[in-house]
C-alpha cells in the first residue's frame, strides 16, 4: 500500500491548458475517482501518473520517491485502459502473464499467479482463448487481471467501463471495487459517469477545465457541493432566483419542501406534472415569480398534489449553494 501524490502539476498542449495546477494526494489503499466532463483534465492527470505524459511543472510522488521523470515502464503501476488494450496475438493467459515475464519471475510462480488472477476476476476457464473471442466485459476483466498480476503499488483505471453495455457496467463496477478493497491497492479511477464515482469511491475529485473543483467523500460532494459546477455536475439541480434578487441559488430536488400552505415568505407556484417513481414522486412546479419549472422530489405518500394545485416551495435550511450572478 503506497500513497500517490500530485503537487503543483501543470500541463499544456500547445495553447490549451489541460491542467492548471493540480494538488492531489491519495492515501495508501484508498480509491479516488476523478470525475468530470470531457476535456476537464482527468485523463491527463492519470496519464501523467502513468508516465505517458510529462508535466510542464510539478512533482509526482509515489510514496517517498519522486517519479516525475521516471519512464513509464519503470513505474510499478498497473493500468486498465478504456478498451482494446489486450494484445490480440496472445492468449488470455499470456496477456496476464506479460508483466510477470518482463520482471523475469520464474515459470512456476508465473503460472500459479496467472491462475490466481484469472480466478480473482472469475475467468478461470478462459485462459486459452484469444481476446477477439471474448465479450467486452470479459476483455476488461482480463485487462484488470493483467494489471494486478504484478502487484502494482498503484492501480490506474481510465474510464474502464465506458465502452461496455449498461448491465455489464454495473456488475463490473462492483467487482472492481470488491477486488480493490480486498487487495487494498491505492487506486485512481477516471470517469465521466457520476453514478460510478458515487458508488465506488472513497473520495471523489470533481474536475473542470483543468482545475480540481472539489475533493471529498461522495456524501460531501453530493450533499455539500463546494461550487456551482459541482452542484450542477453531480446529481440533478434546480436553479432558483436568489432571495435578494441577485444571482441564483442551486438546490437539489430533495432539498425543497413543498406544502399547500400559503406563506408570503415562500415561493408559490402551480403543479404541472406529477410523476410517480416508486419510493419517490417527482412534482414539477411552475413558479409564479419567473415562470420557471422546478422539480421537487417528495417521499411518495407524504404529499398529495395534483396537476393544477397551488403549492408553496421552500428550501430546507442549510442546503443549496449560492451562485453569484
Amino acid at each position: 500500500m503506497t500513497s500517490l501524490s500530485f503537487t503543483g502539476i501543470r500541463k499544456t498542449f500547445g495553447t490549451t491548458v489541460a491542467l492548471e495546477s493540480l494538488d492531489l494526494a491519495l492515501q495508501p489503499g484508498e480509491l479516488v475517482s476523478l470525475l468530470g466532463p470531457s476535456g476537464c483534465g482527468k485523463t491527463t492527470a492519470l496519464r501523467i501518473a502513468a508516465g505517458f505524459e510529462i508535466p510542464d511543472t510539478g512533482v509526482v510522488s509515489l510514496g517517498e520517491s519522486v517519479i516525475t521523470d521516471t519512464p513509464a515502464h519503470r513505474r510499478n503501476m498497473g493500468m486498465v485502459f478504456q478498451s482494446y488494450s489486450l494484445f490480440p496475438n496472445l492468449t488470455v493467459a499470456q496477456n496476464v502473464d506479460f508483466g510477470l515475464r518482463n520482471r523475469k519471475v520464474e515459470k512456476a510462480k508465473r503460472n500459479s499467479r496467472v491462475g490466481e488472477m484469472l480466478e480473482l476476476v472469475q475467468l478461470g476457464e478462459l485462459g486459452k482463448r484469444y481476446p477477439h473471442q471474448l465479450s467486452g466485459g470479459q476483455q476488461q476483466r482480463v485487462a484488470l487481471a493483467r494489471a494486478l498480476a504484478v502487484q502494482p503499488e498503484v492501480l490506474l483505471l481510465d474510464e474502464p467501463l465506458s465502452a461496455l453495455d449498461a448491465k455489464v457496467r454495473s456488475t463490473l463496477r462492483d467487482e472492481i471495487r470488491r477486488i480493490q478493497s480486498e487487495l487494498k491497492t491505492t487506486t485512481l479511477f477516471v470517469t465521466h459517469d457520476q453514478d460510478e464515482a458515487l458508488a465506488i469511491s472513497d473520495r471523489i475529485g470533481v474536475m473542470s477545465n483543468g482545475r480540481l473543483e472539489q475533493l471529498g467523500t461522495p456524501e460531501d460532494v453530493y450533499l455539500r457541493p463546494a461550487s456551482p459546477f459541482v452542484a450542477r455536475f453531480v446529481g440533478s439541480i434546480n436553479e432558483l432566483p436568489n432571495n435578494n434578487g441577485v444571482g441564483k441559488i442551486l438546490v437539489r430536488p430533495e432539498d425543497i419542501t413543498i406544502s399547500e400552505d400559503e406563506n408570503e415568505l415562500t415561493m408559490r407556484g402551480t403543479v404541472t406534472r406529477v410523476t410517480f417513481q416508486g419510493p419517490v414522486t417527482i412534482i414539477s412546479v411552475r413558479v409564479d415569480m419567473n415562470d420557471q419549472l422546478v422539480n421537487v422530489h417528495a417521499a411518495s405518500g407524504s404529499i398529495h398534489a395534483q396537476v393544477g394545485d397551488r403549492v408553496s416551495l421552500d428550501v430546507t435550511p442549510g442546503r443549496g449553494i449560492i451562485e453569484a450572478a
Partner: protein
Amino acid sequence: MAIVNIPPLGEEGAVAQATAPSHFWRTPIDNIRNKKSLAWFGLVPFFLFLILFLLIPAISVFAQALHDEDGSFGFSAMREAISGQNLDAFIFSLKFSAGAAFVGVIFGGLLAYAAATATRPRWLRNIVSSFSGVAANMGGLPLAFAFLSLLGRQGLGTKILNAFGWDLYAGDFKLGEVSGLITVYSYFNIPLMVLVTLPAIDGLKTSWREACANLGGSAWTYWRRVGLPILAPSLLGGFLLLFANSFSAYATARQLTDNSKIVPLRISFFLGGDISIGEDAVGYSLAAWMIILMGISMAAYWLLRRRAERWSNS
C-alpha cells in the same frame, strides 16, 4: 414500413401481390422463396466479365501449353518449359524477384513506419502516401528511362560515383542483371510496400504500446512480443505481393535489357517470333507455369491478409 406479416397464399395473397405498388419492396413470398438464388444473380455481370476477359485468356494459355511437338495433347511442352535454359530463366527470375521483394519489404516497412509515426510536419505522411500511389503504379517506361539516366553507362549517378572513385560498371553490374533490376524495381516495390503497410501500422493501437510499457516492457520488448508478431502477416503478405509484382513485370524489363533470362521477356520472345507450333507451346507453358507460381503466391498472400484483418477487428 416493411411488410411484417406473410399474406396467405391463394386468392387473397394473389390479390395482395397484384395490387402492391410496383416500386415497393419485393413481396414477402418472393423474398423467402428466391432470396438466396436471386441474390447471386446480381453478380452475373461481374462473373461474366471475369470469365470473358480473364478466365478465357488464362484457360487458353493452358490449352496451348498442353501440346506436344506433334500438336496432340501432352505435357512435353510443360516439361520443357522448366528445363534447360528455361529452368535457368525461372531460377534467375525467382532470385531477383525474391531479392527485390526482400529489399522492398525492409525499406518499404521502414519508410511506412517513419511516415506513420511522423508528427511534424503534418503534411509529411500525406506526401509519402500520395507519392507512393504514383510510384507504385508508375508505368514501366518512365521508370526505365529514369534509371537509364541515372545509372546507365552515361548516367549522371554513374558519373557521380566515378568521382568518388567507385566504378559502377567495373564488376557485374548492369541494369539488366540482378543487382540492377533489384535497384530499379525497388522504385515501385518500396512504395507498394508502403501502401500495404501503412494501414497495418495504423492498426497498431497506441494502447498496446502503452500497456506494454505499463507492464514493464521496453520498446524492444514491445516490438519483439507484440508489434512485429501482429505486423508479421502484413509483412509476409507484402513480401508475396512484391514478389509477384516483380516476377511478372514486363514493361520496365523490356526497356532495360534483352535479357532472356527474365521470364516475362522470354514469354514475349516466344510469342513474337517466327516459330513452329511446338516451340509455340513452350512459350505458353512458360506463361502457364508463371500463372501457377503467381497463383500459389497470391493464395498465400490472401490467407495472410485475412489473418491480419482478423486481428485488426479485435
